[in-house]
């Protein structure tokens, strides 16, 4: 195993726009250490966009998928029973009973105030 000194380490940069949003991958950068990586992340990718938090990850800590592994991610198109698509006929049924279907939009709105 060879050991050499380098200034150039690869970091992947993630950030979120607001405290409540999810982290998003931005880009990669070269930096000699984590402190410099934070400074460069802001300088390189966040000169204008609002930003609430930043993560940097040394690429050495990332386990990537190889080509064969990526091929296992493909899905067969036969899983309607896992999604609302498989139950689409209910809309018409409920209409027969003069009721509206409780769809995703309706159900996710229940977290708010009672209307």
């Amino acid at each position, binding site marked *: 195993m060879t050991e050499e000194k380098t200034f*150039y*380490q690869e970091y992947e940069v993630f950030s979120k726009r607001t405290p409540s949003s999810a982290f998003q991958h931005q880009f*990669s950068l*070269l930096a*000699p250490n984590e402190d410099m990586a934070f400074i460069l992340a802001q300088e390189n990718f966040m000169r204008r966009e609002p930003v609430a938090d930043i993560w940097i990850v040394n690429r050495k800590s990332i386990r990537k998928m190889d080509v064969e592994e990526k091929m296992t991610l493909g899905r067969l198109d036969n899983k309607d029973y896992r999604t609302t698509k498989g139950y689409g006929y209910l809309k018409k049924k409920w209409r027969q009973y003069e009721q509206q279907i409780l769809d995703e939009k309706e159900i996710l709105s229940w977290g708010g105030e009672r209307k």
Partner: protein
Amino acid sequence: MTNLHNAAEEEQLAHFMQRIERGDKIEADDWMPEEYRLTLIRLISMHGISEIMGALPEKEWVPKAPSLNRKLGIMAKVQDEMGHGQLLLRVTEDLLLPYGKNRGDIMQDLFNGNLKFHNVFHMETKTWADAGIIGWLVDGAAIITQTNMLNASYGPYARALQRICAEEVFHAQHGESIIMALAEGTEEQKAMIQESLDRWWEALLMFFGPASKETTGSSKQDLTIKYKIRTKTNEEFRQLFFDKYIPRILSLGLRIPDPTIRFDEESKLWSYKQPDWNEFKKIIKNGGPRSHARLNLRRSSYENNAWVRDALSVKVT
């Protein structure tokens, strides 16, 4: 054995070309033919280093900007250009991985003349109007070529360009603002823009490169189109530049320093006086008016900062 190897490689190549035709995005770790990799390395390393070298003629105007607001504006632009350089060098470095090369090698290639920077950044700036012309028309020309590659087949380059083009809009308007102030100013200020446009016109034509490879003996445009990195030829870019900018230049009362230029309604093409392509050949071999001075500036700052890189280097296994 060799035949088997060839057959496997041919199959990989056919599969790769199918992906290109389908509009798939190729990523850094995907298999790619060496011709594709080398085409990308040449294009993106040149683009990246040009962003950095392009900041040099503009940074000359930071201390000389006519107001604090103008100083802040041009400083922000110079910082953006360096940021764009960082993004693009990163894309290049991932492509260079199989060759064991890193950013230090890219800088050495620049210094020893193996890596070229864009012909437009070898030119001299003389007046504040040049800062305006660069932002308005040089960045305008860059926007034309870069937006054409927003859908490039190479994913990391396309993503870098998305970020870059968003900021180029600010650069173009920053240049327009300088030009507009001068165009609505005194006679002396108006004359300053015209004089600047006269000097930059040839460089603006050269910006897009010659129409065919006959001029310099080689051209990347066929390869970049074949691999769907871009869709338009150099001449198509130049024509689009004329379409967009000639009416705007004329509307400000400026004159195009080419009495022969005209738009042919039938062919929908502009005819114009060709720039001196021999001068172009000289410039791209680092023989332009400011080639050596800018390379020396870059080299000396790289050498002066060597101790920082050395002090912050860490051992990796």
